[in-house]
């Protein structure tokens, strides 16, 4: 094999099949290659190690810890050790025996003594609305000690209500599906099956649907606006393209809070958009754009436009003009050429841009909080509310978990349709 010898012209590239005589050499060559490969891989891994450690410490572990709260809540089990013991033999139907009542009374008193009663009350209340006041009332009566504990317990109707003991019993298991089910508006019924919560308590399914709807609407709007713009930028001369790109990126470089605030100014009842619509005669009266779904979608579309546009643009830029020329010269009319030659080639960029926008929209928080009305709050607003206001981190974790699962599933579907390697995000 002389290096000077010209390779045979225009033959298919030789495939790498080693002839039998070469097998011994081939094996050792392959082994040497593998060793060299491994060394390279280890080196690059070592270079990336600080980042990986940082990611694990600041990102991976906290997320896992937080999300585990969705299914692991030991508060009740820790607070009610005797009750847990007493409920071991309970079959879960009807009321447990008096020993369980006595154990609960003892547990409640010891919590009061340790100062953890309030935390327990909150935790019970999250699963059993109204449990807080009932429990605190019972604790006060137990503390008074003018009657035997069993009598006190039986006197409060709450402890003998049909739904109470199953919830306490499930609370004594640290691992619970309660929050995850709640996040989907489901619950365990008295027979041990899963059922929907009554309509007046159902909320999250609707919020998830709303979140997906808004994300899809924004995705479509950015695609409809962004695709022609990307095409324009990709086809104009370089100088003009740079100006247009900056115009697209300028809002991108501005803080999302500032942009949202700007939209609250524009969308006011007496704001610029309404002024313009009236002046143009496009509307008869001032529209309620603020605190409305349409206002929310407008503002989110504006913020998301670069995310959809840039991947599309970066793919469009790689398509040579001769592609369309070739299609025309071969007899394809402009629309056919676009559909059969151009579109399939920009499709990975379109998918990437849409996916990026859709997933980012699922997590929108500030914009719906400031521009959306009460009925336009997305799932992130509820998660934030559970974290900051309700202090129910278990519920927040459960909602986050469901959102994460949906997002990953969606990403999986995209990747499946397209092949992950073809997904051109940049």
């Amino acid at each position: 094999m002389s290096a000077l010898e010209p390779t045979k012209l225009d033959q298919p590239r030789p495939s790498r099949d080693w002839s039998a005589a070469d097998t011994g050499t081939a094996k050792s060559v392959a082994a040497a290659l593998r060793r060299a490969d491994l060394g390279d891989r280890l080196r690059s891994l070592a270079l990336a190690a600080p980042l990986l450690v940082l990611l694990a410490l600041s990102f991976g572990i906290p997320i896992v810890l937080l999300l585990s709260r969705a299914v692991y809540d030991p508060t009740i089990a820790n607070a009610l050790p005797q009750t847990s013991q007493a409920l071991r033999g309970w079959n879960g139907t009807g009321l447990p025996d008096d020993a369980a009542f006595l154990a609960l009374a003892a547990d409640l008193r010891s919590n009061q003594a340790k100062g953890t009663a309030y935390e327990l009350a909150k935790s019970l209340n999250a699963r059993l609305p109204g449990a807080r006041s009932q429990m605190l009332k019972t604790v006060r009566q137990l503390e008074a000690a003018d009657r035997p504990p069993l009598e006190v317990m039986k006197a409060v109707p709450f402890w003998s209500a049909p739904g109470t003991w199953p919830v306490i019993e499930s609370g004594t298991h640290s691992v619970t599906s309660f929050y995850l089910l709640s996040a989907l508006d489901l619950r365990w019924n008295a027979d041990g099956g899963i059922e929907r919560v009554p309509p007046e308590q159902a909320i999250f399914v609707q919020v998830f649907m709303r979140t997906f709807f808004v994300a899809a609407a924004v995705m479509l709007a950015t695609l409809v606006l962004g695709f022609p713009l990307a095409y324009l930028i990709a086809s104009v001369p370089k100088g003009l393209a740079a100006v247009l790109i900056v115009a697209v990126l300028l809002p991108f470089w501005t803080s999302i809070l500032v942009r949202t605030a700007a939209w609250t100014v524009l969308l006011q009842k007496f704001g610029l958009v309404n002024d313009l619509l009236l002046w143009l005669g496009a509307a008869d009266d001032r529209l309620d754009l603020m605190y409305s779904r349409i206002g929310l979608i407008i503002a989110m579309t504006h913020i998301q436009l670069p995310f959809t546009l840039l991947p599309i643009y970066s793919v469009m830029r790689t398509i040579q003009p001769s592609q369309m020329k070739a299609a025309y010269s071969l007899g394809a009319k402009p629309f056919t050429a676009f559909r059969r030659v151009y579109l399939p080639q920009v499709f990975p960029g379109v998918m990437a841009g849409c996916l990026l926008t859709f997933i980012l929209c699922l997590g929108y928080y500030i914009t719906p909080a400031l521009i959306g009305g009460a009925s336009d709050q997305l799932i992130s607003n509820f998660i934030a509310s559970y974290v900051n206001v309700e202090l129910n981190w278990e519920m927040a974790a459960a909602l986050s978990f469901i959102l994460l699962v949906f997002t990953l599933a969606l990403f999986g579907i995209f990747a499946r349709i397209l092949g992950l390697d073809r997904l051109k995000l940049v």
Partner: protein
Amino acid sequence: MIAEAAALSAGSATPTPGADAGGQGFVEFVDVEKSYDGRTFAVTRLNLDVARGEFLTLLGPSGSGKTTTLNMLAGFERPTSGVITLEGRSVDRLPPYERNIGMVFQNYALFPHMSVEENVAFPLSVRKITKVDVASRVGRALDMVRLRQFGDRRPAQLSGGQQQRVALARALVFEPSLVLMDEPLGALDKKLREHMQIEIKQLHTMLGVTIVYVTHDQSEALTMSDRVAVFNNGGIAQLGSPDDLYNMPESSFVASFIGENNTLEGKVERISGKECRVALDGGGSVTALAVGVTEGAACHVAIRPERLKLAPASNGANALPATVDGRIYLGDHQRLLTKLENGQVLTVKVGPEATMGNGEAVTVSCAPNDCRAFPADAGTGGSISKTGE
């Protein structure tokens, strides 16, 4: 992409003077001009006939207007003025997709998301041809370029030469009567290029299609073409067979653009019949064929290296004393750089056995018929010659 909207058409009602009288021109350019900015012209006063079944090459340096000419014929550009006809019909209003012209691009322009078969089937499928027909014609087209077994590969999995053959099959599969090729071999290495030249030439002979071929490679033009149009500054400097262009260039531009050439500078002393006597700058004189020169004017004398001999002059040949200034060994022959007494340099093609050393005195001679004197200020741009017709 396609500057159709911006193009100012001269109006399709313009009659085509001389075009019909010209006879069987398969493709005709009549007074075609193209300007992008309204001030400078990429193509000026272009008149060109292409005969049916001809292999015509547009040859020229970059920016000479050859690609613009091809693009106007393909329909990607519209002439600023003038008329282009295809089979006697003006194509002024015809978009590229209705011209039925096959085109091969320099970068192949294969569709990367389609297999080889789908690429070749593309022109057929947009023409609403039945599936069975498409399959058999695609098969034949791939057989023609010997790529049938690669039908299900993607273009990216093929070598450059194979990709270009797919592009050829795609441009030929719908049986266009005219095929345009825009530097199709420019991206290939030398060996492969020569190989593909032969292949394209064979396809041309076999199918009898008319081919208009654009290149800046003069050897490619000479190898493949029936006729070559040499472009310079937006116009045709000379149009003729490869033979004519090489042996009878009409300007010093053509003489030096095609093949290797020596240029001597001088002044025309007197013209007698076909020949003229040229006094070289710095001393000495030669007799040369007069090609458009006038007495007393500065001129360039063009001589091919292989026409020069290292021998004393005999029966009226030019003889110039010189010294050897260098020798380039090229295997089958050698190039001898010789310096004339007047300081001008001549390259002489000699056999591989020659062993002259630097500084050796030699006599360089050549017949007057092999020397061509051109006006020195020959404005080649826009001058339209009609040699060979």
